[in-house]
């Protein structure tokens, strides 16, 4: 589903990604861990076609990132630190706007918007401007926005940050049903337990490359903590 080979990204003189390789088969839930500044968000931005790599090849769902950006954008959904929604527009107007940008027709769109509002617990706020929503509610809207066009791949950058336990559970449930529907998920998180709980595969990004990858089934919370700490110790040396 996602194939990355030799990915390099420089900002000025700083090499943020340094020959990164990664393969994420379709239907996989991958959690990526790594210290601040390791290049996780940069990797996600490149996958989302928001930043251009300096070298390396990336394919998503068979499409080549270098020339098929529009096709890739139509199969991915992105949740980032900021909700990417318009404060002056209501919750449902935001969803309609993004749905239509992704080519949903009027009939399918209304049904899809209702469905997302219900499943994310936003129905009672549908007519509120999104700028008056609480942070957690806005994050739910961001998740709905990322899902509106039924993407096949979800790219998530610390999606649980700022969510209360209930909203966090709503997100988990949404992600599980996305995965059950055959979707592929790449989630960046600093929460080792959460990353382990949700994922099939775990990857550690240190200094611009994948330092290690493991099957989630082959480790537990303590093992994961140990892995992370030993990589981090090597990182500082």
């Amino acid at each position: 589903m996602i194939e990355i080979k030799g990915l390099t990204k420089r900002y000025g003189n700083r090499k943020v990604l340094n020959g990164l390789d990664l393969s994420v088969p379709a239907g996989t839930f991958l959690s990526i861990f790594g210290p601040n500044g390791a290049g996780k968000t940069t990797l996600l931005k490149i996958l989302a076609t928001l930043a251009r790599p300096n070298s390396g090849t990336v394919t998503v769902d068979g499409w080549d990132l270098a020339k098929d950006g529009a096709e890739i954008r139509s199969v991915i959904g992105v949740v980032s630190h900021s909700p990417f929604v318009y404060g002056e527009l209501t919750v449902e107007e935001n969803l309609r706007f993004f749905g239509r940008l992704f080519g949903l027709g009027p009939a399918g769109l209304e049904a899809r918007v209702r469905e997302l509002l219900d499943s994310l617990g936003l129905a009672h706020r549908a007519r509120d401007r999104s700028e008056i929503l609480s942070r957690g509610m806005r994050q739910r809207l961001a998740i709905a926005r990322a899902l509106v066009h039924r993407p096949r791949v979800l790219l998530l950058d610390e999606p649980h940050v700022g969510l209360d336990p209930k909203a966090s559970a709503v997100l988990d449930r949404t992600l599980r049903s996305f995965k059950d529907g055959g979707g592929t998920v790449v989630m960046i998180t600093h929460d080792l337990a959460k990353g382990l709980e949700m994922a099939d595969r775990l990857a550690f990004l240190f200094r611009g490359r994948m330092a290690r990858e493991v099957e989630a089934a082959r480790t537990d919370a303590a093992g994961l903590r140990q892995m992370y700490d030993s990589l981090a110790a090597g990182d500082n040396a």
Partner: protein
Amino acid sequence: MPSTALLIAAKDLRAEFRTKRTLNSMLIFSVMVILAFRFAFTAGDGGPAMVAPSALWITFILAGMFALSASFSKEKDQETFQSLLLCPGSRTSIYLGKMLSSFILITMVELFSIVAMAVFFEYDFGGPERLAWLAVVVVLGTLGFVGVGTLVAAMTMNTQMREVMLPVLVLPLVVFTIIMPAVTATAKVLGEAGMADVGAEVRLLLTFALVYIIAALLLFDYVIEE
């Protein structure tokens, strides 16, 4: 015009009319500029007829900067520009959508300014023929201005002091290509001795509108890349 561009323009206008923040700033600013011109010049300077064309275009261009700047700074401040970049389809649709919404806002303010001018200057804009030509000049001049201004606004969106950078970069680009021919044409259309031929100026305005828009379509992808 691709449907993505229309969707973006409609979204911009819907959001703007809900708060009217930019529109109100533009309208207040226009009245101030027109009043300043009204009282800064007296009959001895040749009167309103001499000043009106320049006053109009200075109002249009300066008030227009508000629309161009807000069009991108609102997206930047809410980080929604990323979500536009995430949409499939060509990114030049974003340019066209932004251009269209700014064009509509600016044209509304221009209409208002022309009426305000007629009132404060007790100015007679003449019959339908003059008004029609005035409309042609205003539309073409605005198109060129918005065409280049939207590109520059996208470029300066990520810079510090973007509110200053925008006019500093746009004004030199439009002084000779748009403001001068537009002022000349407006003066000819409104001339007291009757209307003179404005074919040359209209052709110039049309040419630069096309040149700016085509150049912007070619460059837009590069100026927004990270």
